C-alpha cells in the first residue's frame, strides 16, 4: 500500500513537471516572446549571496522556475528562491533541538540597470525606525554607510546604505524613489533591493508558491493559466515601473 501511495505522489510530481515544461513554457513564449522559462533551473546560491541583501548563513537553499531574457532593451532574469538557516540549541538537560529558520522565500529578480555605476547600494525595509522611532534611527547610523534621501515617505519606508553617497544619489533619483515606493505598494513591505555592478537586484516574499500548477484543478482551467500570466507580468512589469528601458547616455 505504501508503494501505491508513493506512486501517487510521483504521479502528481510528474504531472506538475510536465505542465510546467510543456504548457507554461508555451504561455511564456506567447506572453513575453523574448523570455525563456526553465522550470527546473534557478538562481545560484552564490549569486543570491553575492547580492548582499541577506547577511545570514544559508544551510539549505532551493531555487526553481528560472526566467531569462529581455523585456524591451533590458536583460532580466528572475526565479523563485527559498533560503533557510539551521539553528541548533541545547537545553540545561543536554537535549539538542534543531529548527529551520526561513531567511527568504519569494522571488529574486535581477536586471541590467539603465545607468553604469561602480558603487554598491542596498535598500531595505526600515524596521528599526518604524519600531523604535528616533532610537532606531540612531541604531541605523551605527550600522554605517547610511544614505539619507530627501523624500520623507521613502525615508520612512526604507533604509539606504551605500559605498558612495554621491553615486547612491545618482542611482536613487527622486523619480526612482517614487518608482520604488510604487513597487513596495505592489509587492509589499518585504521589498529589498541591491544595486551592484551596474545591475539592480530586487527580492520580495511571495505568500504562495509562484509558477506552480495545482494538481487538483483541471489542466485547462482559465483562472490557473491567468494566474501564471499575472505572476509573469508582475515580474516583467518591474522593468517598466523602474523605467529601465530608458537608456541613459552613459549606458551602451
Amino acid at each position, binding site marked *: *500500500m505504501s508503494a*501505491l501511495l508513493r506512486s501517487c505522489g510521483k504521479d502528481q510530481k510528474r504531472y506538475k513537471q510536465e505542465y510546467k515544461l*510543456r504548457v507554461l513554457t*508555451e504561455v511564456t513564449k506567447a*506572453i513575453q516572446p523574448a523570455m525563456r522559462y526553465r522550470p527546473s533551473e534557478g538562481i545560484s546560491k552564490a549569486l543570491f549571496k553575492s547580492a548582499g541583501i541577506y547577511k545570514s548563513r544559508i544551510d539549505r537553499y532551493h531555487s526553481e522556475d528560472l526566467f531569462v531574457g529581455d523585456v524591451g532593451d533590458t536583460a532580466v532574469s528572475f526565479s523563485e528562491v527559498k533560503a533557510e538557516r539551521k539553528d541548533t540549541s541545547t537545553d540545561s538537560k543536554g537535549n539538542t533541538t534543531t529548527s529551520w529558520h526561513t531567511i527568504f522565500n519569494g522571488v529574486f529578480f535581477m536586471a541590467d540597470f539603465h545607468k553604469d555605476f561602480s558603487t554598491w547600494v542596498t535598500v531595505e525595509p526600515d524596521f528599526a525606525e518604524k519600531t523604535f522611532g528616533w532610537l532606531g534611527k540612531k541604531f541605523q547610523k551605527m550600522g554605517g554607510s547610511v544614505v539619507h534621501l530627501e523624500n520623507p515617505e521613502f525615508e520612512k519606508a526604507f533604509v539606504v546604505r551605500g559605498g558612495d553617497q554621491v553615486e547612491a544619489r545618482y542611482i536613487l533619483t527622486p523619480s526612482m524613489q517614487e518608482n520604488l515606493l510604487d513597487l513596495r505598494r505592489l509587492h509589499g513591505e518585504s521589498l529589498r533591493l541591491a544595486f551592484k555592478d551596474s545591475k539592480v537586484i530586487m527580492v520580495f516574499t511571495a505568500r504562495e508558491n509562484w509558477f506552480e500548477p495545482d494538481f487538483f484543478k483541471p*489542466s*485547462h482551467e482559465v483562472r490557473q493559466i*491567468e494566474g501564471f500570466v499575472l505572476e509573469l507580468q508582475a515580474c516583467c512589469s518591474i522593468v517598466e515601473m523602474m523605467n529601465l528601458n530608458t537608456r541613459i547616455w552613459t549606458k551602451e
Partner: protein
Amino acid sequence: MSQSNSEHVMSVIKELAPLLAELEDQRQGALKKRSKGMSLVSLAAVVWQGPEAL
C-alpha cells in the same frame, strides 16, 4: 487583468487545447489511482482499529 490581455490568454489557451486535453487525461488517471489508494488506506484502518477508525 485587462480586456486585451485576457483575450490574448484565451487565444493561447485555444492553441494549447490538444496539449491541455492530454495533460487532463494524465491528471484524471492520477486522481483515480489516488482515490483508489485513499480507499485502501481507509479499509486498512478499519481492519486494524475497527469502525471507530472512520
